[in-house]
C-alpha cells in the first residue's frame, strides 16, 4: 500500500526538501504582485542594466529607458536591501526557521552580529558568465524574472519558449563545466 521507492526517489531529487524553495518563490512572486497591483508594471530585474547605463551613455538603446530608470534603480536597491534583510534575520539566526539550514555552500563571515555569506564560485566564472547573461538577456528580451516570473505568469508563449531555451542551454553548460572538472 505504501511503496517507499517513489519516496526515496523524491528524496534523491530534493535533498533539501522543497519548502524553502517554495516559500522563497512565494515571496519573489509576492514582491512582483505588490508592484503589479499598485503600478500595473510587470517588473523584470535585468532592464535595470540598460536603464542605469542611460545615466552614462547617450546611446539610443539606453536612452529609451530614461523614463523608467529612476524606479528601476529603486527596485534594485530594494532587492539588495531584501537580501540584506534575509541575512540580518534568517541567516543570522535572529529569526529561526526550520526551513533554513546554513548549508555547505560558500563561506560565512560576521560583521557587527550580522552573518554574511560569500560564494566560492571562482571570479572568472562569475565575470565571464555575467558577460553572457548581460548580452543574452538584452537580446532575448528578458531574464529569469522578466520571462521566468512575469512572462510565464502571463502565460506568454514567447516567455515560455525563452525560459525553456535558457534552461536547457544552462543545464548543458553547467554539466559540461562540471565534467571538465571546474569546481567550484
Amino acid at each position, binding site marked *: 500500500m505504501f511503496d517507499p521507492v517513489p519516496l526515496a526517489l523524491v528524496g534523491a531529487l530534493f535533498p533539501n526538501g522543497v519548502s*524553502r*524553495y517554495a516559500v*522563497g*518563490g512565494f515571496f519573489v*512572486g*509576492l514582491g*512582483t504582485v505588490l508592484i*503589479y*497591483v*499598485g*503600478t500595473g508594471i*510587470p*517588473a*523584470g*530585474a535585468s532592464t535595470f542594466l540598460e536603464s*542605469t547605463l542611460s545615466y552614462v*551613455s547617450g*546611446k539610443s*538603446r539606453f536612452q529609451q529607458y530614461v523614463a523608467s530608470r*529612476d524606479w528601476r534603480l529603486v*527596485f534594485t*536597491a*530594494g*532587492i*539588495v536591501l*531584501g*537580501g540584506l534583510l*534575509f*541575512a540580518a534575520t534568517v541567516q543570522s539566526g535572529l529569526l529561526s526557521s526550520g*526551513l533554513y539550514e546554513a548549508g555547505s555552500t560558500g563561506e560565512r563571515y560576521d560583521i557587527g552580529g550580522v552573518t554574511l*555569506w*560569500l*560564494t*566560492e564560485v571562482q571570479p572568472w566564472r562569475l*565575470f565571464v*558568465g*555575467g558577460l*553572457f*547573461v*548581460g548580452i*543574452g*538577456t538584452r*537580446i*532575448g*528580451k528578458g531574464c*529569469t524574472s522578466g520571462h*521566468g516570473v*512575469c*512572462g*510565464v505568469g502571463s*502565460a506568454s*508563449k*514567447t516567455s515560455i*519558449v*525563452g525560459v525553456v*531555451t535558457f*534552461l536547457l*542551454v*544552462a*543545464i548543458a553548460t553547467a554539466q559540461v563545466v562540471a565534467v571538465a572538472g571546474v569546481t567550484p
Partner: protein
Amino acid sequence: MADRHPLFKPLVFVGGIVFGFGLGFSHMARPEVVLNFLTFADFGLLFVMFGAAVVSGIAFALMPRVRDTAPLSGNRYERRLKSFDRNVLVGGAIFGVGWGLSGICPGAAYASLGTGNVTILWALAGMFVGAYAQGYARSRVSTDVTPASAD
C-alpha cells in the same frame, strides 16, 4: 507613463525588498545552489521560479478584470507579452551559457550582494559590460526591429 502617485516609488521599493528577501530565503541568491540545480543534484530550485510565476500569474489574470488602471501610475493592467522572433532563441541561448557558467542571474545577483556576497560584483560587472556591448552594437546597427505588441 501617466501621473505617478507619491507612493509609486515607496511601493516599488517595498516590492523590491520582498522580492529580494525571497531570493535570499530560496537560496537562489547562492550560485552554488543554482549550479546544483543545473547539474541535477537538487531540483528544488524549480519551485522558486515556477512558484513565483504561479503567485504572480494570479495577479496577471485577475487584475485586468477587476480594474482598468493601476492606482499609483494610471497604467493599464496588461499581461507581460513580448513578440516572438529569432532573438528570443539566440538571446535565451546566450543567457543560458552565462547562467550555466556562473550560476547567477540579474535579480539573484542584486539579492546576493545584499546577503554580503561582495564577490558577486564580478558577475554584476560582467552583466553591465555585456549589456553595454550589446546596446552599443545595437545602437550602431539600426536594424533593431521594434517589437510589436503581439505575443
